[in-house]
């Protein structure tokens, strides 16, 4: 073995030439270059060989130093110094190298080739080194040590969170000192820990890029998001960033996430998904928490923007969330968020699949599963209700009765599933009751709320609904039970108080009708206690009077009537109130006629703003609570409308005019309403209600006649003015005006198709025509045109004539 080795060595030494040395130096293989250069120099110590040997020495020493092998580097440098440096270019690089390895003091005394510039640079490097490794400060520059220790003390103070001490250490370092750069670094570091980006950048932007402090600051800037790693694509920086990450979390995910963020910012979804596919495993292993948040975030973006295709791709790359094991839920929501109407069907399809997923979902407890299924059924039910509403509002003229029935049937089933699976989930009841109420099925709506009270006896909405329901059905005693429970829930609520007051008043009437007069008086007393401010109102006094008439106490009744007359001054409204109440209390016919006669006589008097308003209020309330229309009511309305129509020259008070308009709205008396709405606009332009009313009147003209701009302006004014008011009615006006404004604005200015609620029906009705027009008979076609024209406010015959006369020419 030894023989073989010697033979190889001998053979190599023969083959070595100076060309090998040159080649290895060029390639940066200083180890081999030094070996070969030594051989060459030993074999033939020419000046050329010595030059190459010196270059090989210094190259190798620098290489070892860079690789952190300082001791080896020092050994090589010692050999070089023993050999002696004759080559000027080698001599120029020697001082910095000696400084780096802590041997500057070994610099040959005759080495005076350094310029002032080089000396300054060397001093700066020595200063940096004194901070990083104080023990290697050259003896010739020991004066640097004091400031270097100050910088280190400042850095240690920052590490301990004592910023003021750190700044104190920096105070004695002059601006011209080679340590000035470190002052900026320390100040920037303080700002960095305080998350003060401006302060950090203000200091670190002043650092000399070639110096040590700037190199340390670089990875910190990336971590703080002040610089991108891509801008400075070097390995040392990346490794330093990783070191910092590991220092705090033992993980290195920041770089990967930063890349994903940049793709997301550019909406470059294919690239993002491609990158995610590559890094998903690493991310999951490194930080499961961040991985989970990332998946949730991306899923959220795709679902929110309705990016179904991207969501599908994501579902193939990452694990599904525990709540959605087959991504059906996310897809259902994403389809619901796309802009295409047909995607609603896909959404429903995926919701139904998700219902199956929920049946055995391990992420939820059995109770939660049922509740979640109830919630999904509610979502499906709401979709069916929307379908039914679309059919109901469709103006294509085709008969959508079966479609509406089918959609409502599906809605009923879905609501039932919701209430069965989640019997304590109140939004399900509210939606189901709303569905029945909107379709004019109050009994079914009440049934839904009764069912809710079985599970939640104190549910306020249910109690209020049932109280109002029983009032409207003429059953105030039952209503009072619910109102009392509601009052217990909200003893200070104004609306609940007024509701209870109405039920007391109604109960008094019911009790009086069954001749339980003491109980009836108790109910009246309870109403007075509840709202003491109202106990002397003329209408309350009228009710008390009628109660006493019914009880046979004519004297007390007369006293109440006189008291009411004193309150009013002009008794017309009182006689109407008495008439209405005598009817409601089932008083004898003669008694009713007596007050009716008085009212009719009073109506002939001069019209007054207050009287008109009060009568509208009394009759409006009476019509709201009367379960079925009566000829007597109709006659009263007729008489009142005649009175109101005579009121055009009355000096209106704002509230009175508003009440009259509200009554006319209820009666759908458009001609009179327009007249008074215009008066309201003229006299009280500061009241939002009249602007809203004018906007509504404009809309009533129909889609082809109304002025879109004027309507928008009216609603905008209504919102602006009503928002400033504290009146509860104005809050409702703001909501209504906003809804109407949205609908009018959404309608195209060129082709406005609005339904009763203002819905833009173009998309759907066009679809109906396209699908069905071929199969229509001439009669059906004529009927469609007639209906459409009526809704649009056009004469159907004129339109038909125009169609016939404008046949397309061949």
């Amino acid at each position, binding site marked *: 073995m030894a023989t073989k080795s010697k033979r190889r060595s001998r053979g190599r030494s023969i083959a070595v030439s100076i060309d090998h040395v040159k080649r290895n130096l060029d390639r940066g293989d200083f180890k081999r270059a030094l070996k070969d250069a030594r051989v060459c120099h030993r074999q033939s110590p020419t000046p050329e060989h010595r030059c190459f040997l010196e270059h090989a020495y210094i190259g190798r020493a620098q290489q070892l130093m860079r690789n952190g092998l300082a001791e080896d580097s020092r050994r090589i440098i010692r050999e070089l110094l023993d050999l002696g440096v004759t080559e000027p270019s080698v001599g120029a690089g020697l001082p910095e190298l000696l400084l780096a390895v802590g041997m500057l003091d070994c610099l040959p005394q005759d080495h005076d080739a350094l310029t002032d510039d080089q000396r300054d640079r060397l001093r700066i490097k020595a200063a940096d080194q004194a901070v990083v*490794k104080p023990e290697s400060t050259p003896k010739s520059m020991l004066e640097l040590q004091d400031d270097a220790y100050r910088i280190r003390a400042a850095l240690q103070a920052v*590490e301990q*969170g004592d910023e003021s001490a750190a700044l104190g250490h920096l105070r004695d370092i002059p601006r011209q000192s080679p340590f000035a750069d470190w002052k900026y670094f320390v100040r920037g570091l303080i700002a960095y820990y305080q998350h003060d980006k401006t302060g950090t950048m203000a200091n670190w932007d002043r650092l000399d890029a070639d110096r*040590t402090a700037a190199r340390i600051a670089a990875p910190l800037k990336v971590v703080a998001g002040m610089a991108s790693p891509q801008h400075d694509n070097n390995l040392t920086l990346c490794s330093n960033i990783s070191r*910092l990450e590991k220092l705090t979390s033992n993980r290195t995910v920041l770089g990967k*996430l930063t890349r994903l963020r940049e793709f997301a910012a550019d909406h470059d979804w294919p690239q993002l998904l491609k990158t995610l596919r590559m890094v998903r495993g690493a991310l999951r292993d490194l930080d499961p928490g961040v991985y989970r948040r990332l998946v949730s975030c991306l899923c959220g973006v795709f679902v929110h923007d309705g990016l179904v295709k991207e969501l599908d791709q994501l579902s193939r790359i990452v694990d599904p969330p*525990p709540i959605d094991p087959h991504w059906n839920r996310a897809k259902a929501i994403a389809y619901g968020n796309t802009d295409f109407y047909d995607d609603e069907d896909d959404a429903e399809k995926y919701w139904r699949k998700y219902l199956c997923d929920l049946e055995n979902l391990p992420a939820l407890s059995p109770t939660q599963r049922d509740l979640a299924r109830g919630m999904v059924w509610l979502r499906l039910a709401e979709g069916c209700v929307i379908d039914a509403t679309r059919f109901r509002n469709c103006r294509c003229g085709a008969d959508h009765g079966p479609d509406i029935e089918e959609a409502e049937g599906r809605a009923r089933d879905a609501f039932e599933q919701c209430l069965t699976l989640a019997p304590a989930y109140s939004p399900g009841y509210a939606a189901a009751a709303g569905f029945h109420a909107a379709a004019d099925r109050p009994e079914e709506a009440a049934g839904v709320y009764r069912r809710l009270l079985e599970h939640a006896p104190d549910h306020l909405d249910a109690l209020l609904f049932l109280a109002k329901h029983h009032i409207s059905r003429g059953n105030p005693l039952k209503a009072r039970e619910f109102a009392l429970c509601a009052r217990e829930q909200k003893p200070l609520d104004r609306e609940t108080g007024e509701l209870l007051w109405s039920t007391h008043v109604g109960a008094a009437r019911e009790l009086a009708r069954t001749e339980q007069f003491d109980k009836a008086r108790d109910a009246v007393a309870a109403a007075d206690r509840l709202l003491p401010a109202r106990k002397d109102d003329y209408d309350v006094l009228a009710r008390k009077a009628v109660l006493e008439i019914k009880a046979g106490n004519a004297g007390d009744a007369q006293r109440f009537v006189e008291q009411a007359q004193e309150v009013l001054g002009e008794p017309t409204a009182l006689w109407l109130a008495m008439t209405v109440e005598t009817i409601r209390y089932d008083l004898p016919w003669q008694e009713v006629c007596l007050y009716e006669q008085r009212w009719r006589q009073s109506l002939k008097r001069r019209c007054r703003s207050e009287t008109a308003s009060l009568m509208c209020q009394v009759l409006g309330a009476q019509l709201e609570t009367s379960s079925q229309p009566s000829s007597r009511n109709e006659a009263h309305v007729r008489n009142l409308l005649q009175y109101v129509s005579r009121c055009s020259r009355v000096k209106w008070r704002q509230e009175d005019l508003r009440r009259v308009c509200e009554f006319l709205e209820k009666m759908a008396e458009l001609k009179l309403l327009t007249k008074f709405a215009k008066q309201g606009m003229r006299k009280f332009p500061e009241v939002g209600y009249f602007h809203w009313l004018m906007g509504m009147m404009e809309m009533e003209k129909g889609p082809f006649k109304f002025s879109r701009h004027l309507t928008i302006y009216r609603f905008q004014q209504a919102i602006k003015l009503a928002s400033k008011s504290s009146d509860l009615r104005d809050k409702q006006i703001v909501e209504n005006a906003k809804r109407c404004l949205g609908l009018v604005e959404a309608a195209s200015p060129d082709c406005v198709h609005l339904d009763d609620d203002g819905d833009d029906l173009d998309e759907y009705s066009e679809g109906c025509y396209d699908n069905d027009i071929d199969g229509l008979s001439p009669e059906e076609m004529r009927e469609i045109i007639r209906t459409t024209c009526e809704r649009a406010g056009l004469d159907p015959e004129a339109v038909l004539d125009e169609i016939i006369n404008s046949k397309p020419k061949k």
Partner: protein
Amino acid sequence: MTDPYTILGVSPDVDEAALRWRYLELVRQNPPEKRPRQFAEIREAYEHLRDPVSRLEKQVFQVQGHESLDDIVANLQSRVQAARIPTETLLSLSGI
């Protein structure tokens, strides 16, 4: 808002009692008079999660993540940034 589960340091399947216990623990650590910002964050996150029905409702119907990618990166950056780096480690970044 950052993910409420992350703020409270609980998993999405946490039960009501554990959630409340964790909330009270965090409030003790971050009293409003000393750390108002953290307290407000914790309170908001707890309000978000406290009602089990509305929590389930959000779980079922809300896919929109609480955080953007920017939030996640910023959160991670601030976690890294918040830790004080030992002086020797800091100086070793110079490569000298």
